[in-house]
């Protein structure tokens, strides 16, 4: 695209893009989600096949084709949507493509087998907009992913792209921008929940030049991928947010720190930066305003600790990513010792919305203390795995049951882990908790970056705490004693409990150690590391006691504490478990009761998985 030198020219360009699209509005539009989740399920092949097959149509139908990034409903990928009818096809394979073209595009009929079935009503749903997963969401930030080819700046401009930037540059002073963000009470979406407006103001007032604006895309929580999806799917919105922030703060240099394990995000944001530079949205004298701002991408090695601001900045400087004490804040002395303002990907995306629609509009969404929406990655034992965006204050129950579709296979809900490894587990009694920054913290958990892992009755909460501790031990940088030695000792104790070596005094020691780590660890990775243990101890203490005193695992997970046996009344002698057992521990004649030799059993659970009669029991 040619250089756009002023806001009037931008509006002319936008008009001409919209006019062109108006002409095409009646044409069939095929949209395929090519986000990382759908790619994992084979979306690239689907895209390739579509391009090839559509090319063979020879004018039989005029079809427009678009590959976007993540729509959020990853469970059903690869996703194909046919507009203007809004037909939603799920789990599409390359083999289905000719059929979609023949039946739907040319024949105007719906391919029944590719439709989504609502797990609660068991009914097939034809249209995307009727899918319950989407209906209860409020996709203000994430919704545009569905309409944008991330490599097309025209797509972004067609959806009012860079309008907020024009407004900030031409109608507002930097102070007014900060005031607007502050009035909107935008809180950092990376986990801390600190007021973005206050942070910006401190950075603007801090002494020292140059000032840096940084986007934290080092998302490292297991199971969380909302930042990746935003950066992959709508990179210009992040650049626009950062540029507005830079204008407000008085910065002319920005960095996007993104982990190298996010290749598609790196690729798409790099393309977007180039396009923005060529079109005049980045660089010198942006849109003729006299304001200069440049953004560079810095790729990280994927260390969880580099999501912590001071460690991120150290890594950005080219040194080993280890945190430092922040008694002098990074807004005063950050990157290369200069004032630096770091915000998370989702926070930057929110900035655009606030400036475009105003703080008064924004404030209407959410709760008293937490405004706007939040994107969560809903994963684990849940029917509708994916990314969701909901207004702050929606209850866990609505999220898990109305949007998530509940727990699969008729199992019972047990707990939900929010906030990733630094967060905590909340039990059924907390399902009506309105989800916002303060309520989650009050309950002992936290918002974090928005990971939400749902667990069913087959989960052992002690084993779960062990899983997160193990993650944190692996990711601890090792700089301070409480985190390096303390969290590792917590893992050692919890492992002992899981493996039947737990002692009664272990719980007290875990609590003492947790208190000290919270008080004394150098950074937030360490000080929040005890959370999974503390919340499981708070809400599921009886499970710890069962492991320690009775040497039993109520969840039936810890292999040292469980035994497999066969229910005499339920076993039909079908022999399926016998064939599946890898250690030849099961014996029994056909149509007779089978039995498990406990000496040979390796407790892998294969027999239980394959038994259709629920005859394999864990004790």
């Amino acid at each position: 695209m040619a250089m756009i030198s002023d806001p009037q020219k931008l509006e002319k360009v936008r008009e001409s893009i919209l006019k062109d699209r108006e002409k095409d509005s009646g044409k069939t539009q095929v949209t395929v989600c090519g986000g990382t989740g759908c790619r994992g399920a084979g979306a690239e092949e689907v895209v390739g096949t579509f391009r090839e097959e559509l090319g063979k149509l020879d004018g039989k139908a005029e079809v427009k084709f678009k590959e976007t990034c993540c729509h959020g409903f990853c469970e059903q990928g690869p996703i194909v949507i046919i507009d203007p009818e809004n037909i939603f096809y799920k789990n599409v394979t390359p083999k289905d493509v000719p059929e979609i073209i023949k039946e739907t595009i040319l024949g105007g009929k719906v391919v029944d087998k590719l439709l989504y079935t609502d797990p609660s009503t068991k009914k097939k749903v034809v249209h995307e907009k009727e899918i319950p997963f989407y209906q209860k969401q409020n996709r203000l930030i994430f919704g545009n992913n569905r309409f944008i080819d991330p490599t097309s700046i025209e797509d972004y401009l067609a959806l009012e792209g860079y309008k907020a930037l024009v407004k900030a540059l031409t109608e507002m002073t930097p102070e007014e921008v900060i005031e607007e963000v502050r009035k909107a009470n935008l809180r950092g979406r990376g986990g801390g929940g600190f007021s973005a407006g206050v942070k910006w103001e401190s950075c603007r007032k801090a002494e020292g030049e140059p000032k840096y604006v940084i986007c934290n895309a080092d998302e490292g929580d297991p199971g969380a991928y909302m930042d990746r999806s935003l950066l992959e799917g709508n990179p210009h919105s992040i650049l626009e947010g950062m540029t507005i922030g830079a204008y407000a703060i008085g910065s002319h240099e920005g960095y996007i720190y993104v982990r190298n394990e996010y290749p598609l995000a790196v690729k798409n944001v790099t393309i977007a930066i180039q396009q923005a530079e060529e079109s005049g949205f980045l660089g010198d004298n942006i849109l003729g305003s006299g304001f200069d701002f440049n953004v560079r991408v810095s790729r990280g090695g994927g260390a969880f600790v580099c999501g912590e601001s001071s460690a991120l900045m150290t890594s950005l400087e080219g040194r080993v990513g280890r945190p430092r004490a922040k008694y002098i804040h990074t807004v005063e002395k950050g990157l290369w010792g200069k004032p630096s303002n770091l915000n998370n990907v989702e926070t930057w995306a929110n900035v655009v919305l606030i400036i475009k629609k105003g703080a008064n509009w924004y404030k209407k969404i959410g709760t008293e203390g937490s405004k706007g929406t939040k994107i969560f990655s809903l994963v684990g034992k849940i029917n509708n795995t994916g990314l969701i965006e909901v207004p702050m204050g929606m209850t866990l129950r609505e999220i898990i049951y109305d949007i998530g579709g509940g727990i699969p296979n008729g199992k019972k809900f047990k707990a939900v882990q929010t906030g990733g490894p630094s967060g905590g587990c909340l039990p059924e009694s907390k399902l009506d908790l309105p989800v916002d920054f303060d309520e989650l913290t009050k309950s002992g958990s936290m918002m974090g970056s928005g990971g939400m892992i749902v667990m069913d009755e087959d989960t052992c909460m002690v084993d779960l705490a062990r899983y997160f501790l193990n993650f944190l031990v692996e990711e601890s940088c090792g700089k301070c004693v409480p985190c390096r030695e303390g969290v590792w000792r917590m893992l050692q104790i919890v492992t002992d409990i899981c493996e039947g070596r737990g002692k009664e005094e272990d719980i007290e020691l875990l609590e003492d150690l947790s208190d000290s780590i919270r008080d004394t660890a150098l950074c937030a990775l360490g000080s929040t590391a005890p959370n999974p243990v503390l919340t499981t101890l708070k809400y599921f203490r009886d499970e710890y006691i069962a492991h320690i005193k009775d040497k039993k695992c109520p969840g039936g997970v810890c292999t040292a504490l469980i035994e497999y046996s066969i229910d005499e009344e339920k076993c039909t002698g079908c022999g399926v478990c016998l064939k599946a057992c890898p250690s030849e521990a099961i014996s029994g004649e056909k149509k007779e009761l089978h039995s498990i030799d406990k000496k040979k059993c390796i407790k892998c659970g294969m027999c239980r998985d394959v038994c259709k009669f629920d005859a394999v029991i864990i004790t």
Partner: protein
Amino acid sequence: MELTINSKRVSAEPGMTIYQAAKKANIYIPALCYHEALSSMGSCRLCIVELTKGNRTKIVTSCNYPVEEGIKVVTDSERVLKNRRMIVELLLARCPEVKIIQDLAQELGVKKTRFRIDEYKENCILCGLCVRVCEEVVGVGAISFLGRGKDEKVDTPFHRASDVCIGCGACVTICPTGCIKMEDIDGNRKIDRWQASLPLQRCKICGKPVATRKHLEQIKERFALPPEILELCPDCKRNYYKKQVVAQGHL
């Protein structure tokens, strides 16, 4: 400016840390990773104190917290001591045989550690003094932290003899646990921990080892000293200067 430490009014210069202000006022705070000649790393967490500012009280490390007007600091509250004891318990489980840790345990009333002592390998407590002295004072940076988390250690890159180590022995001198050993044998200085073996310069007069040749080269580059004295041991150097002073008729 003025602050309060343990109910005592203490004056301090801006830019000082709480630790420095306390030291100036003869108030003891234990620390393992702090050294006045080096930057603060804040990793051992033993120097924690309870800080009250306005109506908020929190735990901070005194070695890197800059003094502020009117803050109230308590160096030995029950909360501080409880946390220090836990840190010592953790270190004691890591290095049960290190004297400085045993002494700290005694000082804080820690009789034994509740953690398992099963992975006892060596006496390094990862205080990082050696790393910082090598980088900040010697100006070399031959060693650094490698690995992370519980597998973190201090070593040369790739556990090979460093090209830049000058064998000055500053790391050996500063190590609080004595886990870096140095030996001068057969005309070479050996620091086995870093695979270092560097030829020594013998004194031109008495033949005793002076320092490694590489160390002397660095001194020559850095300071404008008369080249002849670099090849003398401390005793002979003293004699050399004595003779000069006498010759000049000052004595």
